[in-house]
């Protein structure tokens, strides 16, 4: 296997996950991408001996590790000392964590079966048992009533359509956004109104954080190692909101996806941070669309060349403006898909050459004026209503090679 020195940790994690930690890896100096092909080619000479050795010499087999399973460990009693210890032991996301004592974890598990395997999480195929999820929920400060939402979110992110391995390991700034629908949102105080994606809401904070800590600690996406995000984004601490169903002029997301209005669901998507859409002037759907589509149609977006199902979060006032023009949600999606496009000529020649190479079916016949849509089909565009009073909405692009997943909360 060949790689660059900056990404050795991911190469090692990938081969270890497949039971082959002794897979020979030859490294060239980073970077390999974004440099002229001649310079990439010139890096071959230096690793030739190593590659030949890797193909002709059996490496010593490693010693098999032992499965950790649930384990009690001794940590400092002092809460401030515990924070330092938690960072040293890679338990934490950097914010203060609460100690997962036996009593707190037992309260979170409640009458559930601690050994129940909820999901296996990439990249390390970590076993997300109810117990393991509860331990991470305890670290995040969650209460027992939050656990069913967290468990449903863990189940959802492990569904193959989400492509969790790529979401966890990519350099792209994405993380699962958790959208909660149904009556559980009001019952638990999961905010979908003012500042829904901001601070000030315990349920949003601890549910998103518990999922993220589970992905880090059980899934094994450690920042800078398996999690190769170039910059990451603040939603990697927590990223959760409810749809503002009461103020939506349309059916909510979970109803659109075949669930009953009285059922509660989580929807997860591999999402970038929200990109704001400020429009204080428009009074009709047609005129508002210029701002919404204009915010989406940018050259730096993964969705433009990879597809996927990006999200439009309409603030309630913008949603009302759209609905008062007589548009259904499906009509909004169709118009948005028509409008949110980038002409190929806006990309650099280097990038166009790469698109043609990696996605010939989409780009081979494309000319300079070919318009690239923000999603593959109108139906792929996700739309929810959230937020409070004000004239703002948000575009939430995704990793692209991912599809959102909706799961019922049991």
């Amino acid at each position, binding site marked *: 296997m060949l790689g660059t020195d900056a990404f050795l940790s991911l190469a090692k994690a990938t081969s270890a996950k497949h039971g082959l930690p002794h897979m020979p890896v030859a490294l060239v100096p*980073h970077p390999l991408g974004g440099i002229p092909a001649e310079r990439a*080619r010139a890096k071959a000479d230096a690793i030739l001996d190593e590659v*030949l050795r890797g193909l002709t010499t059996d490496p010593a087999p490693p010693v098999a590790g032992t499965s950790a399973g649930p384990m009690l460990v001794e940590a400092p009693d002092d809460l401030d000392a*515990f924070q330092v210890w938690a960072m040293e032991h890679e338990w934490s996301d950097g914010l203060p964590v609460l100690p997962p004592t036996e009593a707190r974890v037992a309260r979170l598990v409640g009458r559930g079966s601690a050994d129940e395997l909820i999901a296996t999480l990439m990249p390390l195929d970590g076993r997300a048992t109810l117990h393991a999820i509860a331990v991470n929920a305890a670290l995040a400060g969650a209460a027992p009533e939050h656990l069913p939402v967290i468990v449903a979110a863990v189940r959802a992110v492990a569904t193959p359509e989400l492509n969790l391995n790529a979401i966890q390991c*990519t350099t792209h700034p994405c993380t699962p956004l958790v959208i909660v629908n149904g009556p559980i949102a009001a019952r638990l105080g999961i905010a979908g109104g003012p500042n829904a994606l901001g601070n000030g809401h315990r349920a949003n904070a601890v549910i998103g954080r518990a999922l993220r800590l589970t992905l880090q600690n059980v899934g094994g996406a450690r920042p800078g190692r398996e999690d190769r995000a170039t910059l990451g984004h603040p939603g990697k601490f927590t990223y959760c909101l409810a749809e503002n169903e009461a103020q939506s002029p349309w059916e909510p997301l979970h109803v659109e996806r075949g669930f009953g209005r009285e059922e509660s669901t989580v929807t997860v998507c591999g999402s970038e941070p929200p990109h704001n859409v400020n429009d204080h002037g428009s009074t009709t759907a047609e005129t508002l669309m210029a701002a919404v589509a204009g915010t989406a149609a940018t050259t730096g977006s993964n969705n433009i060349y990879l597809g996927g199902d990006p999200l439009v979060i309409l603030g309630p006032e913008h949603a009302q403006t759209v609905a008062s023009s007589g548009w259904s949600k499906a009509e909004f999606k169709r118009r948005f898909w028509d409008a949110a496009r980038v002409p190929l000529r806006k990309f650099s020649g280097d990038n166009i050459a790469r698109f043609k190479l990696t996605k010939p079916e989409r780009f081979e016949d494309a000319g300079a004026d070919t318009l690239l849509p923000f999603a593959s089909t109108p139906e792929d565009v996700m739309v929810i209503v959230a937020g409070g009073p004000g004239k703002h909405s948000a575009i939430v692009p995704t990793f692209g090679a991912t599809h959102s997943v909706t799961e019922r909360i049991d």
Partner: protein
Amino acid sequence: MKLWSPFSGGQTRIGRLAPRKSSLAGLTIGVLDNSKPNAGVLLHRVAELLAARTGAAGVRGFSKPSAARPAEILDDIAQSAHVVLTGSAD
């Protein structure tokens, strides 16, 4: 204080690598391009230099359409090449 560890038993199985070849002479070197920029350039250059040095029979190229998805042609590659080089990540 005693605390539950947030980690969970993951993959601990140790698999066997395919036996290494004593020499590449007369063998086909496969290249699986992971579709990251310049990965194919480097992989093919290494394979060509190796073939020239060792007397390998030739180089056979494969690629997966996206670095973000697993390769679906592994059986095909295993049938067509004796050793394979591929890339990890960027």
